[in-house]
């Protein structure tokens, strides 16, 4: 299918540009500096030289880029100079954790948001609608870490219901593993939900105003049928788009929330890697996140196309 091929090529081109951008941004420091900061306390020049060679820091920037890209696509993501671990191996489990976290948060946020959004759209302008709308504007404006810290205070410190952090993820039984997800996922869901509610509401209001909805009502169909059969399917396309768009923010949110709750995911790793100057890890994470994000966008586009196939 040429359309698919074209979008795939566009995707690859974008990825390539991302890789250049990332590589350029992380290669601003000279190899010497990188080695110094990685090796730390009083090192000999020989060690620095060895490091530069081992990390593939010698040669011109384009050559280094070429080498790095070649290695990257063949699965060799380098070794973190800080942890001495192969980057790919280190990121695997963290990536899994982060993905689960994102999915859990999404599942936590989406269904109630749809229900609430549809409900208030139906009684647009009512007191509940105003309350929900204003509430979502307020909630949407709160930084993730503020929501997270407040939840931590309420649920963990005051009520003692949940652990304050996600260290249960590293070991501990299933219960502790599950608990480890609770606060981060809840925080993310709270940050996402207002966006979703607003979008569902706006989309549903649009659809409800459509003549075909009034036509359905005037055919004597019950309200439930009208809402779920006639309104919801027509918001689906927009909804998928909204979810896809919000996933960018979800990725950002995951980074923040992981750092609030010491959750062992890629976001936490990214921030430490940035502050430690762990270049290979930062590069790999940028690429992984880029791929993930693009995959999501493409998937969303495909779904939207499918959903809207019938509706032009």
């Amino acid at each position, binding site marked *: 299918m040429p359309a698919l091929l074209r979008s795939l090529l566009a995707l690859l081109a974008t990825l390539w540009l991302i890789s250049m951008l990332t590589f350029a*941004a992380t290669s601003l420091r000279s190899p010497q500096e990188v080695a110094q900061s990685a090796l730390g306390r009083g090192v000999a020049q020989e060690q620095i030289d060895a490091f530069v060679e081992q990390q593939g820091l010698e040669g011109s920037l384009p050559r280094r880029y070429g080498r790095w890209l070649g290695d990257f696509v063949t699965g060799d993501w380098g070794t973190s100079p800080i942890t001495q671990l192969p980057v790919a191996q280190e990121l695997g489990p963290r990536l899994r954790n982060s993905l689960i976290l994102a999915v859990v948060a999404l599942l936590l946020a989406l269904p109630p948001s749809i229900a609430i959004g549809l409900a208030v759209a139906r009684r647009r302008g009512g007191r509940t609608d105003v309350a929900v709308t204003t509430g979502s504007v307020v909630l949407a404006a*709160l930084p993730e*870490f503020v929501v997270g*810290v407040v939840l931590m205070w309420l649920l963990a410190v005051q009520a003692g219901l949940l652990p304050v952090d996600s260290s249960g993820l590293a070991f501990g039984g299933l219960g502790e593993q599950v608990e480890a997800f609770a606060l981060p996922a809840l925080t993310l869901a709270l940050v996402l939900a207002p966006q979703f509610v607003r979008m569902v509401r706006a989309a549903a209001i649009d659809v409800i105003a459509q003549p075909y909805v009034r036509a359905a009502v005037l055919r004597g169909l019950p309200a439930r049928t009208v809402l779920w059969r006639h309104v919801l399917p027509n918001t689906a396309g927009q909804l998928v788009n909204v979810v896809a768009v919000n996933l960018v923010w979800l990725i*950002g949110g995951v980074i923040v929330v992981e750092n609030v709750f010491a959750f062992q995911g890629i976001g936490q790793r990214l*921030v430490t890697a940035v*502050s430690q100057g762990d270049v290979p890890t*930062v590069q790999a994470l940028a690429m992984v*996140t880029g791929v993930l994000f693009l995959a999501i966008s493409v998937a969303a586009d495909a779904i939207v196309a499918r959903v809207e196939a019938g509706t032009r």
Partner: protein
Amino acid sequence: MRRRGGSAIRAVLRAPEGRIGAALALLVLAIVVLGPALAPYPPEKLGVGAPSAGPSAEHLLGTDTLGRDVLSRVLCGGASVIVIPLIAVLLAQLVGGGLGLAAGYLGGRWDAILTRLFDVVMTLPPLLLVLVLIAGLGSSAPVLAVVVALVFLPRAGRIARAATRSVAGADYVVAARLRGESAGYVVGREILPNIAGPLMADAALRLTYAIIFVATLNFLGLGVQPPRPDWAVMISEGRATIAVTPLGVLAPAVAIAALSVSANLIADALTAHWSPDVRRAGVH
């Protein structure tokens, strides 16, 4: 919809949420501007009270672990989360908006190139992009402003381009071109007045995100560094002692919330006024 006499301020004040937002914003701004003068103690002065003390008459919000007055620190801690986002958004709006306007007006190859460029930058999740850049550039207030501006630049550009395009195709612009108006006139008199409103609403919305953004970077320890008082840094530092001195975290949290919420309320009112149909999802 009547668009006449619709100065942004009046548009904001007309909507109830806009009024609340404006009041809140004024309050926060007053705190930031007058705070240093009002602070009962120097914000960095140690041991003005017993460390980690609860609220009292002398220390309305208690003290932190070094015995500094939390109230004074809150009063003095808002500068960076206001100034840096403002500069960043201004930069993004000027540069990105300018480019977007050019792309939208010129169309053709320039449009294609710029749009593609915007798209590429936008494919990187914003926080990731900022972190990557900070990894390369290090962190300081100017770097922060530029980096955040860079994140928002393509978004501002896209909006400006879309707005320009929607107007550039309008018959009245065609009419102007048929008359042989100069590009300056067409852009300045025919296009800009019609997109200024939406762009302003968009900038206000972006400001909300910039505030969240800068606060988040400060929180992650990649922005403003202690001991300078800063709301997000206070939260980050106070998190550990939240059980003992919750006010040391909750007070700056409320301050940040007030700031970003007020910005968002204003943005919301502006959006509702200028472009009731703009899908906010498409905006960021």
